[in-house]
């Protein structure tokens, strides 16, 4: 029930490659992958000026609220959100109902192109996410916390 979401290096690299390709193909400024609970998984592109932790948390809150609205009217989910700004816009979509894909883009591109490229990237990401979930459910998966001692915990709070 409360098993952690684990991201391994292989899948991380694969997802980062897909996101970077998406960013370039869509001519977008930045791409973010976020866990549905609001944890940032990875970012690509220009985002130095952005508080990405807050972006992740707010996006997850946004998706959660939209999910709630969908269920309220009898829909399974609203899989795409689009926020249009004067300068930058956000295209937010769900991957395998587990992970949130955020594309930030300006007027160098169009929402149509972003949407098209997102669809292609999503197909690739779904496979990677599935392999991650399979690994996480495998009881052989080790947490780095398996061997932490009381002293390790105390040091954090000293």
């Amino acid at each position, binding site marked *: *029930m*409360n*098993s*952690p*979401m*684990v*991201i*391994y*290096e292989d899948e*991380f*690299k694969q997802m980062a490659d897909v996101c970077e390709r998406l960013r370039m193909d869509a001519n977008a400024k930045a791409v973010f992958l976020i*866990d*549905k*609970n*609001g*944890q940032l*998984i*990875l970012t690509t592109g220009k985002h130095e000026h952005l*508080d990405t*932790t*807050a972006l992740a*948390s*707010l996006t997850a*809150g946004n998706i*959660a*609220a939209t*999910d*709630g609205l969908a269920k309220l009217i009898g829909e399974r989910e609203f899989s795409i959100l689009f926020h249009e700004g004067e300068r930058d816009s956000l295209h937010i979509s769900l991957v395998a109902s587990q992970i949130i894909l955020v594309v930030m883009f300006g007027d160098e591109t169009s929402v149509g192109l972003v949407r098209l490229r997102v669809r292609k990237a999503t197909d690739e990401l779904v496979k990677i996410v599935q392999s991650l979930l399979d690994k996480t459910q495998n009881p052989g998966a*080790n*947490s*780095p*916390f*398996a*061997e*932490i001692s009381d002293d*390790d*915990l105390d*040091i*954090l*709070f000293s």
Partner: protein
Amino acid sequence: MSFINYASREINCKIVYYGPGLCGKTTNLQYIYAKTNPDAKGKMISLATETDRTLFFDFLPLALGTIRGFKTRFHLYTVPGQVFYDASRKLILKGVDGVVFVADSQIDRLEANIESLDNLRSNLAEQGYDLDKLPYVIQYNKRDLPNVTPLEELQELLNPNKVPEFNAVAPTGEGVFETLKAVAKLVLTELRKGS
């Protein structure tokens, strides 16, 4: 549901502050934010109404340090306490690793505490969580006020299972970090067990 990223070597956990309206959940986070080293905290986000009542949630990311080479971070959330925001409370509990129940010690808020605790239990159950199996601590806030319920009565009504409990006066910080440390330690201990 904690989050472990082997690629960036970090581990993130989610702690939710729950309790009736105006019990001091946001004040807990504000105090933690004010007293934490700038290197160890991110921006605090408050989605509040114009009258400063929590509308959706407050959010505060905290970096605790490194365990076995993994950067350990806690994401603190509050829920909106007012009764009619129940749909939002349920959303915020998703993926929770640890819970702090902030009780308002004032006599006239006793019913509201009991109702909020019942609401916490049932909202968790809806998501498949059992409060008795989650890392969970209680904070009796506002102990400085004159009209407070005796501690023994609060303990009997709100903490029959004797989870760790703390007296607090959130605006002055009394009990705030003690509460946070206790729940954070329980979360990490649980992770160790769970692995």
